[in-house]
């Protein structure tokens, strides 16, 4: 049922070609500045000099622009439509954030600029640390981790350092079955053994199983709360008691923080370490898979081990130029008064560095702008509306297609919820995947599918707070229409999508014979032709 040749869209007509297949020998966009120094030969010994120049594209600027603009049009994006990708918090990305992040004072600031001449950046980072500490309910923050899973790794390494400092050798980390894949993967990379904890009938952690598996060999329990099922675990206090009882740490995967701001804080729940996904809760654009940032907040006992450097505020600076020269003269060019913020690298118990420099500052600028825009009231509103929207969609779907797509656990949800497509598969013969693909023809991005693994034919729906009721209704109507359509003719969904540039791709074949780069035609050593 693919569209008739003459009625295909231009995108469907045109074969995908890469930038390496475009252009022609000798074409170019870049023009080099003139050589303004006396040229010298053989600055690189020929043994070290590259023989064959890299075969990069040769294209004019108009070709490059058109190529990538057209590629962009083969993407679905959040600015164009509903994107209820569960666990990813696809909320509106304000353009103000792009504007302020692009200010040259932020965007062209070198990471090794003398702190006395980067006071604006350090002030911003310091203020952000304070704000995140208040939001997490934990006093100390490191902004360094580059994403959530990087934050997780930091958290487990902090746990290791904490125990090591107390002469303890622990070998296991507990993760519930509903945990995101990065949790167990992180545990392995950090050199611990993963111990899975079962879920109870309500979708929460099975306390008995937790008790049974918790002993002195356990270093940490990693928990997401609300969980990836969209359920807030009511037993969190008891879990904390159990885990802390054996001297282990409690790690909070902050990917779902969007559900509870203003209501409950990880610190209040008894967690020792938290990571934030700034690209989720704090609306850093997702960029097709990053960049993000995964700052961590920790309790006092973990603080000594935080990565270095930390941004600190100090009373005053000792001028480097003794001999009573003026602050200005002593500290070099200063802007906006004497410096008060600094980078503290002198942290003897620190786990060290997780990456270069001070973290993804450009992401911090956006997050800071977001927190300043919303304020306390706005952040609470975020969670309230996120939960309201999720429950509204859930309630409507129950009424419309509850029999085919039942809620996996419980009655209500927090900011997201998981449906099971098992009945639909059995009775209508279409899988969750088919439903997802058909949604594409309705101009919407499908929810997360087949995660969490504990639910058969899972559909994880997270509407977020920035969507309107009309959009939520349109989503429910689309799902209902697809289920209805499938009842009449399941083939339509099974072969969907139709209007997209390409349709159902052969993923198995791609993995069997991986073609992960374009094979380029060999070139003459002189690089010509």
């Amino acid at each position: 049922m693919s569209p008739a040749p003459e009625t295909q869209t231009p995108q469907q007509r045109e074969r995908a070609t890469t930038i390496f297949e475009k252009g022609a020998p000798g074409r170019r966009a870049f023009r080099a500045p003139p050589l303004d120094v006396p040229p010298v030969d053989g600055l690189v010994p020929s043994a070290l000099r590259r023989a064959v120049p890299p075969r990069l594209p040769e294209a004019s600027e108009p070709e490059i622009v058109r190529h990538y603009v057209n590629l962009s049009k083969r993407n679905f994006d959040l600015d164009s439509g509903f994107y209820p990708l569960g666990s990813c918090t696809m909320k509106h990305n304000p353009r103000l954030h792009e504007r302020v992040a692009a200010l040259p004072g932020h965007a062209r600031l070198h990471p090794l600029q003398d702190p006395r001449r980067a006071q604006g950046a350090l002030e911003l980072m310091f203020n952000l640390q304070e704000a995140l500490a208040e939001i997490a309910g934990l006093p100390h923050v490191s902004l360094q981790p580059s994403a959530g899973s990087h934050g997780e790794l930091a958290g487990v390494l902090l746990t290791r350092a904490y125990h090591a400092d107390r002469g303890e050798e622990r070998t296991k980390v507990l993760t519930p079955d509903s945990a995101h894949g990065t949790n167990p993967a992180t545990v392995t990379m950090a050199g611990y053994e993963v111990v899975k904890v079962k879920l109870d009938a309500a979708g929460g952690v099975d306390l008995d199983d937790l008790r049974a598996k918790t002993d002195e060999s356990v270093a940490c329990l990693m928990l997401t709360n609300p969980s990836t099922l969209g359920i807030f675990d009511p037993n969190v206090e008891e879990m904390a008691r159990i885990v802390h009882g054996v001297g282990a740490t409690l790690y909070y995967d902050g990917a779902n923080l969007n559900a509870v701001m203003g209501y409950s804080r990880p610190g209040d729940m008894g967690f020792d370490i938290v990571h934030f996904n700034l690209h989720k809760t704090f609306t850093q654009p997702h960029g097709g898979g990053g960049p993000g940032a995964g700052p961590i907040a920790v309790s006092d006992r973990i603080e000594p081990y935080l990565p270095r450097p930390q941004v600190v505020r100090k009373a005053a600076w000792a001028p480097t130029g003794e001999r009573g020269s003026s602050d200005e003269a002593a500290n070099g060019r200063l802007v906006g008064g004497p410096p008060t913020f600094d980078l503290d690298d002198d942290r003897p118990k620190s786990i060290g560095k997780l990456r270069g420099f001070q973290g993804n500052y450009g992401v911090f600028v956006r997050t800071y702008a977001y927190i300043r825009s919303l304020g306390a009231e706005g952040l609470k509103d975020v969670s309230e509306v996120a939960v309201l929207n999720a429950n509204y969609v859930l309630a409507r779907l129950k009424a419309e297609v509850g029999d085919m797509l039942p809620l996996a656990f419980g009655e209500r949800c927090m900011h997201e919820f998981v449906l099971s497509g098992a009945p639909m598969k059995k009775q209508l013969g279409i899988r969750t995947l088919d439903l997802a693909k058909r949604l594409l023809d309705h101009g919407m991005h499908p929810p997360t599918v087949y995660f969490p693994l504990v639910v058969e034919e899972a559909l994880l729906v997270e509407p977020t707070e920035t969507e309107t009721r009309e959009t939520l209704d349109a989503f429910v109507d689309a799902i209902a229409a697809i289920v209805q359509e499938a009842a009449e003719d399941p083939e339509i969904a099974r072969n969907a999508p139709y209007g997209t540039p390409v349709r159902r791709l052969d993923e198995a074949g791609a993995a069997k014979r991986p073609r992960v780069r374009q094979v380029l035609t060999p070139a003459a050593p002189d690089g010509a032709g």
Partner: protein
Amino acid sequence: MAGYTSVTAEDLAHMLEVIGAGSIEELFDVIPAGVRLGREIDLPAGEPEQAVYAELRRLAARNVSAEDEITFLGAGMYDHYVPSIIDMLMSRSEFLTPYTPYQPEVSQGGLQVMFEYQTAISELTGLPVSNASVYEGPSAVGAAAYLAKLANQRRRVLVSRGVHPHSRATLATLAIGYGTAIDEISLDDGVTDLAALHAALADDVSAIVIQQPNFLGAIEDVQALAAAAHEHGALVICSADPLTLGVLEAPGNQGVDVCVGEGQTLGNRLDFGGPSFGFFAATQKHIRAMPGRIAGETTDADGRRGFVLTLQTREQHIRREKATSNICTSQALNALGGVVYLSWLGRQGIVELGELMLQRTHYARETLDALDGVCKLHDRPVVREFGLRLDVGDRAAVTRVLDRCAQAGINAGFALGHEYEEYADGLLVAITELRSRADIDRLAEVLGAAVAAEQSASTVSGAAA
């Protein structure tokens, strides 16, 4: 309703009715009293767009950026010109706002960009397999050593002191996790000491880590170092500056098994250190041990060419604790900037730009070396950065010299004393296509004066003492 939500009173009433709840608060009833905040969040109230813009402008104005001074600061990130088409493409909603391409039918743009990016990185590094990006440079080194461990299960890594201090620090932090010991190989006149490497190598060495050009700007003889490592079955990990690979031999042609590096120099902004991207490329045999996303070519139901995320059985969302890495969200948007930059620079451009850096860097090095109280740190060939020694005494003195230069509107570079006790008097100077001969001459003038001033000041105080 604040910020970016849109629930009107009418919406709220209707939605609560459909849900069957009396209030929004009721939806939070599941949260036990014991863990509730019980007060408002203690943060200032929200502000209108114009006020937030003003505040962020105020903060930006408190920074001295590369737009405000003539800077020769490098040491891992460099002030290259970012062509305007990159801002334009990176800010297109279609690239900026989607997430990881889980639905390939509506993600062909992002997936093809990854495929093109992988092709460009493979070509630059001379290695057949590249992933779609990792976080950034130093953590990429840590990830490479983890791959080595998975590959040969050995637990010792040798790292040249020519490797960026942040990379060495990050490797040390991560290696504790996966239980690998780190030993450093010293430098000899600016480059990795081959003899020391030979001495340190043994059959328990999982990998050696080198950097090209190294932190002091010197070009390493990668071939020789790699050969030594391979004699003992150790993998060779090289952290390379991609922008120098138009004039420097491809690491893949020199025996390197895994080539990683910082991608900022490829069309990404300084951004006070991030976000940029790290690249990660390896030989074919490691393809199934790679970390991160990899795009692959395939066909669709109608036989059209298309692209998908492939080899996902390596990844955490499928393999969980058995995954080759825990990385999930990476740096796709920054990698887009990278491949657009490389397309813009082009096959001739990357050589021309490399040649320009070579020539200007040579000119700068000789010009500064000629100043009183200033001399080269080493005499090795360099591409865009080099080390100097300032005859002014301790690290604080060097800082005072840099302060004097800063007052004259010049950022003279990076004080090596921050990272190398042995170079307490060292200065690292970087040259890009944005630093003209006139800028370099101005640096010579200002630096020369600053060194002289510092010298006389200290003799005075010396006399006084």
